[in-house]
């Protein structure tokens, strides 16, 4: 177990829900912390009567949604200005990604909640693509609730054996990343080919 994770686990046992809040919030913004492993561990601690499942779920959900809103608001307010200044909007690839996100907002937001690294990027892009806040919030809450509940329940089922399986969480995350990237590439290239054939 690495130093960062063992330190975070110690803090989790010492400051309980405050640690969950801070770590999940930081991960949602874009800080690379092992929040998924921490939630699996919390699930295991729930099974030993050291945490409350409901409270852990609520705290993690609130922190995650708040962190996601930070990313969304930042780009929604100032993102366009920065993009315009740097002429990024003129890039055809950027436009295609923006278009893809607009037409598949719900799916993109929900699926990206399951992958730590992709989630914050989708938040930034959602703000930039001007996805309505209510729509973003709805899919964000649904995706996060399923993701957090899944991790907590997995930890609860595994109990004291959670450490043996914590590597799988990362592996599943990476499989989802590959699936998303492949889906996006197929979708974008299909759209490009259709455009070319029309023109």
């Amino acid at each position, binding site marked *: *177990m690495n130093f960062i994770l063992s330190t975070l686990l110690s803090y989790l046992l010492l400051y309980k829900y405050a640690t969950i809040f801070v770590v999940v919030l930081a991960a949602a913004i874009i800080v690379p912390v092992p929040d998924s492993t921490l939630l699996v561990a919390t699930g295991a601690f729930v099974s030993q009567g050291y945490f409350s499942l409901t409270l852990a779920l609520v705290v993690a959900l609130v922190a995650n949604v708040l962190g996601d809103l930070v990313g969304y608001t930042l780009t929604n307010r100032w993102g366009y200005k920065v993009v315009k200044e740097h002429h990024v909007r003129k890039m055809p690839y950027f436009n295609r990604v923006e278009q893809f996100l607009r037409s598949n907002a719900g799916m993109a937001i929900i699926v990206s909640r399951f992958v730590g690294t992709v989630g914050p990027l989708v938040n930034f892009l959602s703000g930039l693509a001007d996805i309505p806040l209510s729509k973003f919030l709805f899919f964000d809450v649904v995706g996060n609730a399923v993701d957090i509940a899944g991790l907590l329940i997995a930890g609860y089922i*595994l109990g004291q054996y959670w450490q043996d399986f914590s590597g799988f969480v990362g592996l599943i995350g990476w499989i989802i990343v590959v699936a998303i990237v492949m889906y996006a590439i197929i979708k974008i290239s299909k759209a490009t080919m259709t455009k070319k054939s029309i023109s």
Partner: protein
Amino acid sequence: MKKETKIIVAFLALVLIILIVQVWRQYTFIQRAQTIQAIRGHISQDMQQLAALRRRGPLTAVDSSYIQAWMTFDYINTAFNIPPGYLSNYLANNVRDSSDQYPHISISHYARETATSSAALTIDITSAVQAYFNVSSTSPATLIASSTNELHP
């Protein structure tokens, strides 16, 4: 080669083939039986693991290897359902210095504060927890008293 010799050689070759087939069948049968045994062993092992996974509530002596340096004493006490006085008493008697932060301190932090090795203290705590369960049939007073026995002389 004479016709008779040819027939004998052909007959022997046939017998040899039959024998080889028989040996091969026997070998695969034994191997299959061994494989079945191995599969049975794996299944029973998996079932035991599943049964262990289904077990909920306080941990027992079997789970004492789960104890790690990042764990706090408060968590160990709760997870193993050990009275806080047991490990506190153990530490007071077996570690030279003590920390007033007990039980809200991790083993590694406690080791750092008391200038002891984190790995050695983790082993000591594991042994102390095992010892707790070994004498759990006795009265609480005996349990606290047992924590004063040095595990690492």
